[in-house]
């Protein structure tokens, strides 16, 4: 939606930035259709699509029946037939009913049709914990989809990145899951250009340069990592990488950084075993073996079901836990 006074004065939240990207793309490209539960009149349960139905009508911003497989499956059909659907799944936990359509169909169509049928769609999904939500509203399933060839997986952590990456995702010829970390939705504002711009999918961002140790993370834990960095002794020089895209992720940036520092800690909310941290640690082992001064460490969620909110902060990696692992790795 057009910018409000607050946005002009103080900048955009993650919600504002995504809304702006959707607004601009709906305006620019008549093939774009938003569909999902409560995305229309209600503007989405997080208000990410607020106001869009009023402007673009209920044919382009569509309140669908309550059926994730239906949303995903028909979005696939829309995409095949030349539209640019942007389905929303209300919470990451409800990707469950859509899993078959997403993984067995959207991800495979290009391959199984030898490129003759393609699925340019962007699946928007709020992700992660930390907002006191009920069951199945706080998970971090990015590794499942990163492990699905044919899907691209994006998770921005800032309003600026969100807008640029979302515009790239919508214009991408392949299906993209665009995970939106809920904990960051309204946690801060930043200046975001009003004009159209894109950030390439697959490019990490170095948030702080350093020489002693590399921290790799993405999504909401980026801010827990920044918190950890504040807790470290000043003479410890840490390079913090926000991956931004989980699949295909920016291997070069990780490799170059760890070849420089020789130490790495990977941080994510998702469970540890078979998480993206395992992939990144292996990449480092493959490419940085002789540079390593310490074993790669993982600070992650536990290998359990995401607990209800009374214990969620005990589950989620926080500043102190990350800082401790960084110091142990640095001292190794």
């Amino acid at each position, binding site marked *: 939606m057009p910018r409000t006074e607050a946005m002009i004065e103080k900048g955009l939240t993650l919600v504002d930035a995504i809304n702006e990207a959707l607004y601009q793309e709906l305006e620019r490209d008549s093939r774009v259709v938003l569909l999902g539960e409560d995305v229309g009149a209600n503007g989405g349960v997080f208000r990410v699509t607020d106001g869009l139905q009023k402007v673009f009508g209920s044919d382009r911003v569509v309140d669908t*029946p309550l059926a994730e497989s239906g949303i995903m499956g028909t979005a696939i059909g829309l995409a095949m037939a030349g539209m640019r659907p942007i389905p929303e799944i209300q919470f990451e936990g409800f990707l*469950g009913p859509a899993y078959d359509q997403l993984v067995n169909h959207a991800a495979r169509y290009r391959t199984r049709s030898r490129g003759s049928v393609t699925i340019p769609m962007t699946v928007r999904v709020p992700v992660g914990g930390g907002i006191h939500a009920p069951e199945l509203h706080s998970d971090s399933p990015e590794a499942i989809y990163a492990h699905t060839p044919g899907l691209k997986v994006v998770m921005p952590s800032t309003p600026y990145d969100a807008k640029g990456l979302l515009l790239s995702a919508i214009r991408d010829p392949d299906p993209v899951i665009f995970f939106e970390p809920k904990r960051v939705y309204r946690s801060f504002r930043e200046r975001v250009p009003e004009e159209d711009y894109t950030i390439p999918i697959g490019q990490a961002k170095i948030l702080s340069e350093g020489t002693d140790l590399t921290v790799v993370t993405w999504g909401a834990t980026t801010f827990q990592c920044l918190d950890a960095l504040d807790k470290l002794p000043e003479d410890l020089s840490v390079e913090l990488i926000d991956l931004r895209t989980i699949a295909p992720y920016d291997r070069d940036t990780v490799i170059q950084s760890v070849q420089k520092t020789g130490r790495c800690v990977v941080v994510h909310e998702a469970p*540890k075993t078979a998480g993206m941290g395992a992939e990144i640690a292996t990449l480092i082992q493959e490419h940085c073996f002789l540079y390593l001064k310490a074993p790669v460490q993982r*600070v992650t969620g536990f290998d359990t079901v995401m*607990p209800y909110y009374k214990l969620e902060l*005990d589950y989620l990696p926080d500043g102190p836990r990350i800082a401790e692992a960084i110091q142990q790795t640095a*001292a190794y």
Partner: protein
Amino acid sequence: MPIKTVYKAQVEYMQILDENGKLDEKLAKDTLTDEEVLSLYEQMTVCRQLDEVAFRLQRSGRMGTYPQNKGQEAAAAGMGFAAKKGVDWLVPCYRENLALNMHGLPYHYVLLHWMGDERGNKIPEGVYVNPIAIPIGTQMLHATGIAWAFKLRKEPRVAVTFFGDGATSEGDFHEAMNFASVMQAPVVFFCQNNQWAISVPREIQMNSETVAQKAIAYGMPTIQVDGNDLFAVYKAAKEAVERARAGGGPSFIEAVTYRLGDHTTADDARRYRDPQELEAWMGRDPILRLRKYLTGKGVWDDAKQAKLEERAKTIVQEIVKTAEGIEKPTTDDIFDFTYATLPAELERQKSTMRTSSLGQDPAQAGLRDMGTATHGHSAT
């Protein structure tokens, strides 16, 4: 061959107690005794009180998101009462607190759940109620499986599953209906059609005129009832439960009701709902209606009402006290129910509350002692 009709169907609507508290005596025959009605009225009143208090707990930061049951008490009461406590098995979603309580789940469990404490889902021994289900439209398949097991073991028991109008759009709902019918499983599908699925009204959710007619496609007995009418819900529910118990297979009930509150405390229905619609349904409040009926019968008066309201307050205060008196679970609670036996790695994560291995792995600590840390940073 001329064109001929190969199938014809109709859906009946039943109301016994109208909005003004007037009872259809003929239809009400052999349904509820005065004593039962009084008892259910009191339980509905307590449930409503709990609902109002839960709302305030959320607003004052003492509880997380909570979905109010307000306006749907007759549906829960009628269906809950028709099923046999300790025998039949309830498979709920989240808007039938009263039915769960009638079947033995203490109310403070429900509060604990919404307070973000998973011990609210630990079903007491002998209580046949599943935990509150958050993912919409998934639980009806489980109810069908439970009922199928009853049938296989020749147990005269019934599974009852609760769900909303929106839930009938999910694929799992249709699979459950078809399975139940094909297996002739003793299950009752109880749809609380409260007209809304968050912000999506029934007319946008589906093009079917009724929800009840969906059962016809699966060859299942079906009925639409006034869901704010305790008598009608109970009568339909009792018939369905008895049919199932007698080996007659599954049934479908659409209880036409209304969500008098927001979807949950995280929602603001004023964004999408006409206040006049809400106003109209306020007049059809199931509790108000019963009160009119009981007053008309001469078994209820203002003094009794005042006393009941006092009692409901006290009961609910106790429930809240119990729930809030339960200390926060320890972090062991995150781990202990992942598997019957915790794998070693999970034991390690549980005892250290860490996922990094340094400082925990004796072999690597040993290396460090042997001097390999000399290149390391002296930060620690």
